[in-house]
C-alpha cells in the first residue's frame, strides 16, 4: 500500500505546539502512537472523526491539518 492522496501537516503542527510528542498527541486524540506515526508518514488516512479531533487539539481548521491531492485523482481518471 503506497502513500495516500491525503497529506497532512501533523509533524509541523506538533513542533509549533511546544514540540508536542507523538505519544502526547496520541493520548489526547485517543489512538496509539503507531497510528500517529502511520499518519505522519502518510501511510494511513484517519477517519473523519479522528481528523477533527486532531484539528481540535491544534486549534486550527481541518484544512490546515489535512489536504487532498485532487490532481492525482484527475490524473488517474484521465
Amino acid at each position: 500500500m503506497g502513500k495516500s492522496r491525503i497529506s497532512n501537516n501533523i509533524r509541523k503542527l506538533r513542533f509549533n505546539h511546544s514540540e508536542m510528542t507523538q505519544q502526547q498527541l496520541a493520548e489526547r486524540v485517543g489512538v496509539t502512537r503507531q497510528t500517529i506515526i502511520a499518519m505522519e508518514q502518510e501511510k494511513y488516512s484517519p477517519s473523519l472523526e479522528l481528523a477533527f479531533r486532531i484539528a481540535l487539539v491544534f486549534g486550527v481548521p481541518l484544512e490546515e491539518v489535512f489536504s487532498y491531492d485532487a490532481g492525482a485523482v484527475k490524473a488517474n481518471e484521465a
Partner: protein
Amino acid sequence: MSFQQKNITLSLVNFILILGFFLFRLIQMFNSDSFTPASVFRLWGITIGLAIVVTIIGTILTHIVSAIIEAIRTGNEDPKIEDFEDERDQLIDLKGTRITYTVSSIGVFLSMLTFVFDQPPLVMFTLLIFFGVVAQIVGDISRLVLYRRGF
C-alpha cells in the same frame, strides 16, 4: 512493536506450532496405518482445544511480558501498556479476518472436492481442520504485513 503486533506474532508462532503438531501426528497415523475415524476425530479435538487454550494463554503472556519490558524500560513499577484497539487496529483486524475467511472458504471448497475424487469423508474432515489452521496463519501474516506497511 505495538502490543497488538506482539499479540499477532505470538498467535502466528502458536498456530505454526499447532500446524506442525497436526501434520506430525497425521504422518504418524499414515505410517502406523491408524488413519481411522476415531484417531482423526481425536486429533480434531486436540487441535481445536490446543488452539483455544494456547490463544488465551498467549494473550495473558503477552500482557505480562509487555508489562515487564515496559517496567524495565521506564523504571515505573506500574507501567501503562497500550493494549487498546484504535480505529487503525480495528481496520487491520477486519482486513485480516476477511483474508482468514477467504482462505478458509477456499479450503472448505477444496475439501469438498475430495468427494469428487471418491475420497472417504475422513480425508475431507482432515483437510477442513488443516485449512482452518492455515487460514489463521495467513490471516495473522497479512495483519503483520499491514502493520509493517502502515495500513
